């Protein structure tokens, strides 16, 4: 069994019934191969990018720098996995960057008050989930036409709360467990390997299991594939939608652990524009912005790509404005390839029907 998760090979995709016009069968095979390449595209581009950068900069492929890339990508990767769940249901969550900041500030304040690492982490994750719940319930039960609006509102509100609670200043001090997760490295493995990468891997495994094996994960794909159909077949569509926003907020709280741990503080300026990185990562990684298609691998590859582009261009002394332009261009290419993929699939369907 498989759905959007497994990538069928070109032969499998292009397999046509024996009868039918040879030319149409051949064209179906060609379209099938193109589809296969498009699906593999993000991974290939990442590999090529790493190879090119390793050739251009002697520093890029050093362990220390790879550790940097992983560290810088960690928070985006966690946010992107939450964003993936939302985008799978045809939604969008603009609030995750602000939520990260609010969770970090709340965490720092709670730590100052309680001196407990466990309570601090709990407070951060809970704060994130709470913002997510506001998004989810506001969207579904406020009957808003699009999640853009409610998450835009919470983007502003969460940032405002973070600034207000912190008095506009970073609140320094994080428990050791948080600084170890966010800023430490796995000395037992390699001194350059950041602990945050383990957190990312752990979250990735959990989210993958949820998406692949839990009924809830199947429902997420079903709601993304056909929201009305899912409702008619007894999928609790509203509940599913609320749950993905809660998960996205909760993961923003987890990402706050990484950022706050790395900087040993909770600052209201954390995560500015991080929501755009997260959305970009999901789309660049190959998940469909139209919902229903994508997996954790897409989000991780996309987050790594953004990390590699930033890091590589810094190493090559490419100016900041050019980096912004490059990332923008990559986003356009990614979304366009998603559109092309959808059209190719329709074409493929017609060709197969014709050759059958």
């Amino acid at each position: 069994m498989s759905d959007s998760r497994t990538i069928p090979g070109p032969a499998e995709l292009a397999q046509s019934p024996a009868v039918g016009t040879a030319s149409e069968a051949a064209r179906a095979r060609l379209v099938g191969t193109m589809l296969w390449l498009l699906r593999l595209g993000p991974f290939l581009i990442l590999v090529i990018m790493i190879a090119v950068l390793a050739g251009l900069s002697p520093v890029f492929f050093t362990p220390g720098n790879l550790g940097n890339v992983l560290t810088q990508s960690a928070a985006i990767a966690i946010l992107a996995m939450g964003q993936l769940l939302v985008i799978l249901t045809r939604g969008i969550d603009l609030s995750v960057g602000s939520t990260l900041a609010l969770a970090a500030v709340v965490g720092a304040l709670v730590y100052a008050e309680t001196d407990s690492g466990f309570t601090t982490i709990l407070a951060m994750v809970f704060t994130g989930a709470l913002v997510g719940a506001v998004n989810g319930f506001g969207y579904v039960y406020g009957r808003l036409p699009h999640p853009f609006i409610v998450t835009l509102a919470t983007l502003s509100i969460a940032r405002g709360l973070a600034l207000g609670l912190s008095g506009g200043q970073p609140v320094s001090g994080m428990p050791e467990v948080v600084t170890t997760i966010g800023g430490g490295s796995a000395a037992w493995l390699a001194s350059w390997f950041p602990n945050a990468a383990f957190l990312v891997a752990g979250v990735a495994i959990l989210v993958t299991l949820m998406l692949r094996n839990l009924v809830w994960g199947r429902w997420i794909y079903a709601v993304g594939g056909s929201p009305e159909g899912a409702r008619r077949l007894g999928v609790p569509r509203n509940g599913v939608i609320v749950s993905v926003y809660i998960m996205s907020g909760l993961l923003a709280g987890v990402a706050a652990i990484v950022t706050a741990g790395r900087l040993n503080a909770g600052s209201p300026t954390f995560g500015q524009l991080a929501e755009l990185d997260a959305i970009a990562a999901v789309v660049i990684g190959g998940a469909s912005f139209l919902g229903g298609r994508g997996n954790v691998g897409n989000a991780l590859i996309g987050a790594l790509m953004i990390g590699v582009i930033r890091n590589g261009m810094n190493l090559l002394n490419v100016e900041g404005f050019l980096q912004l332009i490059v990332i923008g261009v990559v986003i356009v290419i990614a979304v366009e390839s998603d559109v092309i993929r959808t059209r190719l699939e329709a074409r493929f369907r017609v060709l197969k029907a014709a050759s059958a």
Partner: protein
Amino acid sequence: MTDTPTLAITGATKRFGAVLALDDVSLHVRAGEILALLGDNGAGKSTLIKCISGVHRLDAGTIEVDGEPLTMTSPAVARDAGIETVYQDLALFDNLDTTANFFVGREEAVPRWLPRGLRWMKQKQMTAHSTDLVGRLKINLPQRSAQVGMMSGGQRQAIAVARSAAFASRVVILDEPTAALGLRESRQVLDLILRLRDEGCAVIVISHAMDHVMELADRAVVMRRGRVVGEEVPTPANRARLVSLIVGGDD
């Protein structure tokens, strides 16, 4: 066959604001019988099947399944009573494969004491069941691991019909099952509907294709402006009469 119809609707009335969509409609269908529901656009056919399948609620009238009166408050109630509906838009999930499409909303998963969404799916079991189903209904699908979005119109229709067949213990309702299909694909779907009947389902088919109605249906009920205006056993001989009932030529 017992005397109790599998599905009996009596005095069904449904109003949308000032529009009387259903006006005292009564009909019944028995196990192993195919009933064609005919009528021009706006005659009330779709409203009627939506009331039967729990999407709308009747303002007045009763729905009895195997003699038991049921209040269709939601699609879930209808499904639990063994009534499955295939809508024109099919409610398929292009991003999922055949097996996943069959089981959406009814995934086989454990443990049972957990809320449905948190259960662990038994994917092998579902795949085995869907293989059985596809074999039993003799559906011709490319390969079951393919996403449904990549399949042809006939294959998609077959999957939607098969899904309803898999779970319908009593009644299958089909809204224009061949409307979007070519000749060969229509044939496959018609054969599938006949197999559903042979398995003992009561089948209600909405169709504009009179040839298909002639071939499939044991009885045809004609609706116009929310009322039942006639019932015939469709034969080539009374085809003209059916058509005139549909368009209201005898007024």
